[in-house]
């Protein structure tokens, strides 16, 4: 209940800031030393919140479907791509982390490349991956690959940290039970890594959304919210509220993904909920 209240308050503050800036801000923006440090506050650059909401209800084109339906459908399409990318990325990250934990030499050899992979600009990578579309995989899957490429990184790094988190005495205990590598992984390292895994999964979820949106744009895949932002932004001069409806959709998509990922924790982190200490 309180959480809902905070969410509503947060939303109200965001709207108040937007509208407040429109009241006090200069319509031409604030320019300092030839650089625009604050954006234009006119209706063309920053339409009123209610204009954007109103635009959601009106048809996309004359006689077409209302914008909100188009946006929701695009979001669902991108959600599918994101989910596929997230799952692939998380699995790859998990496997890499386990391999790096198992073999010191893999960690030394691979970790620099894992980090390097994230410095390759996505726009340079996208055309290569886009070429796979239609031949070895459907076009939407190429976008998932890009999302996975961004999503695997936090999981690999976070999970490695988590797998290495058990204390020496925990590892010795498992050794004293004559447990081999696999059983130590299942009984000790994996459960111990969960507090590291979940924040990593949240980052991966956010990265997968960014990857999917950017991937759609740079591979030219149709039907998703990323593509919709580009399409609507072409009409920004005549219909400025329209592009904001698509951005709103993208933001909502991010929230939904973050929410779904945090739902994963609930069954697995039961022991973290009780905190009362008994003293005897």
């Amino acid at each position, binding site marked *: 209940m309180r959480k809902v209240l905070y969410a509503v308050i947060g939303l109200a503050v965001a709207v108040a800031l937007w509208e407040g800036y429109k009241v006090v801000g200069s319509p031409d923006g604030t320019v300092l030393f030839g650089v625009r440090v604050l954006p234009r506050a006119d209706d063309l650059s920053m339409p009123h919140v209610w204009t954007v909401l109103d635009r959601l209800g009106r048809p996309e084109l004359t006689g077409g479907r209302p914008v909100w339906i188009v946006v929701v459908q695009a979001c669902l399409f991108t959600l599918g791509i994101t989910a596929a990318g997230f799952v692939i990325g998380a699995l790859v990250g998990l496997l890499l982390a386990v391999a790096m934990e198992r073999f010191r030499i893999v960690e030394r050899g691979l970790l620099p490349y894992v980090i390097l992979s994230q410095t390759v600009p996505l726009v340079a990578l996208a055309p290569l991956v886009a070429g796979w579309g239609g031949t070895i995989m459907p076009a939407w899957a190429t976008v998932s690959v890009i999302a996975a490429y961004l999503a695997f990184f936090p999981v690999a790094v976070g999970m490695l940290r988590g797998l290495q988190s058990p204390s020496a*005495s925990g590892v010795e205990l498992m050794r004293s039970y*004559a447990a081999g590598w696999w059983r130590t992984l299942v009984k000790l390292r994996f459960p111990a890594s*969960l507090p590291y895994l979940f924040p990593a999964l949240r980052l991966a979820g956010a990265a997968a959304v960014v990857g999917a949106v950017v991937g759609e744009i740079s591979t030219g895949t149709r039907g998703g919210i990323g593509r919709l932002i580009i399409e609507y932004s072409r009409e920004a001069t005549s219909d400025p509220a329209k592009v904001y409806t698509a951005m709103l959709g993208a933001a909502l998509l991010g929230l939904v993904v973050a929410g779904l990922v945090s739902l994963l924790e609930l069954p697995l982190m039961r022991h973290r909920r009780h905190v009362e200490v008994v003293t*005897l």
Partner: protein
Amino acid sequence: MSAVVVSSVTKTFNQGRTDEVVALSDVDLTVGDGEFVSLIGPSGCGKSTLLRLIADLIPPSTGTVTVAGKGAGTARKEQAYGIAFQQAGLFEWRTVLRNVELPLELRGMTKAARRTRAEQMLALVGLEDFGGHYPAQLSGGMQQRVAIARALAVQPPLLLMDEPFGALDEMTRERLQSELLGICAKTGTSTVFVTHSISEAVFLSDRVVVMSARPGRITASITVGLPSRDDAGRQSPAYFDKITEVRQALRGAPLKTAS
């Protein structure tokens, strides 16, 4: 048959490197069946190293370790000993009961059998009502009792303890000492107990083995034999005599009964 036989064992860490350390030098130790032996000595004397050698957590550089007539490695694979460390080291994502079940689970015991056994063990340490709690909900002393229950769960003939009460307050410590003695008497378990505390070593042990540092070696072995192990025992003259004897042995003063 002796519970533990350590003969001519030497342990050198980082052999052949500039940071080479001789942790143990030519150590011989025999622990009889049902005997309670404490290892005491200054920090860095290798008492924990000796315990880890017996547990086959690290291999000796030279010499042999035998546990219950078998090589230390075989004994470990057969779970012929239970071990407890200074930190309780419970798995925080498991309930108390499931923590005690862990070694049984790894032995492949059926679910019902290990539940019954774990409940018995918890009753032994007086925590039968806390099986459903998570470790974070328990005080340090209770966590340590769970760790002891876990070490005893496979009903091992040998119990290895590395300063298990080191992080506890004096009152809890004394209570757990009495409980431990009761359990060992009841189960007939042989025990090797590493400690810093002279009074703890004397109160608990049949024999106190005194070690010295650099290189780690055994300098004295003092048989205790208190008239009784209770509050009267803690106040008996024999108790204080033995404390003095151990203290002198630790300082390297002349010994009366070194063996």
